[in-house]
């Protein structure tokens, strides 16, 4: 996959648990797990905005493009 989700790294940096982030963002832990594992097909701008707000970061801190 060309787009890498670095949510785990950001969570570790902010010392936040997945469960807490899911609660703040307003998504289920199952969906957050799908996002973290890279199985997600797409991410809504509203979800990305909420994650960035909760983790106080930029979208580029979470999503990274890697050439195959």
């Amino acid at each position, binding site marked *: 996959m060309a787009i890498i989700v670095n949510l785990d790294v950001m969570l570790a940096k902010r010392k936040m648990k997945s469960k807490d982030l899911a609660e703040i963002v307003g998504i289920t832990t199952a969906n957050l797990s799908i996002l973290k594992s890279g*199985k997600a097909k797409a991410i809504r701008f509203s979800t990305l905005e909420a994650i960035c707000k909760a983790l106080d970061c930029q979208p580029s801190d979470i999503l990274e493009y890697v050439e195959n």
Partner: protein
Amino acid sequence: MKKVKLLYRLLVFINILTIILIGVQTVFLVIPDLFRAKAYEENVFGSFNHLVLTSLLALIVTGSFKIQQGIHYIIKDGFFNPKSEMKFNLAGKIFIGFALSRLLYIIITMGTFKLNEIINDSILAFVVVLLGIGLLIFADFIKNGGILKEENELTI
């Protein structure tokens, strides 16, 4: 979903009736013809004529049964599921196969039919071909719907 359930019940009823009809036809027409080797000089297939017609009927019942199964999976697993797609695809192919076999039968036995019977049977066969193609398109709709559903579910 009410209409789907109604269609399912109707199909179950029609399929049971047709299976009974096939049974009756087999017992009263096919088996006696084969055992007595009854000669139908006016028919191309001779004593196998009823066997051929019953086989065609069995083919269309198989297709109808596949549609019934497809609808059953729609009721059970929702509109977009791979099992329904597979069943409708198979039903479509069976219907097209039936229609082509029926057309072949009409061509082979052309001499024994009246012109209006040939025209009516041919039109019916073409309608069944259209129905088969319709089922194949419907199977494609289910497939694409399934992909869209999956993508929607995996959009966070």
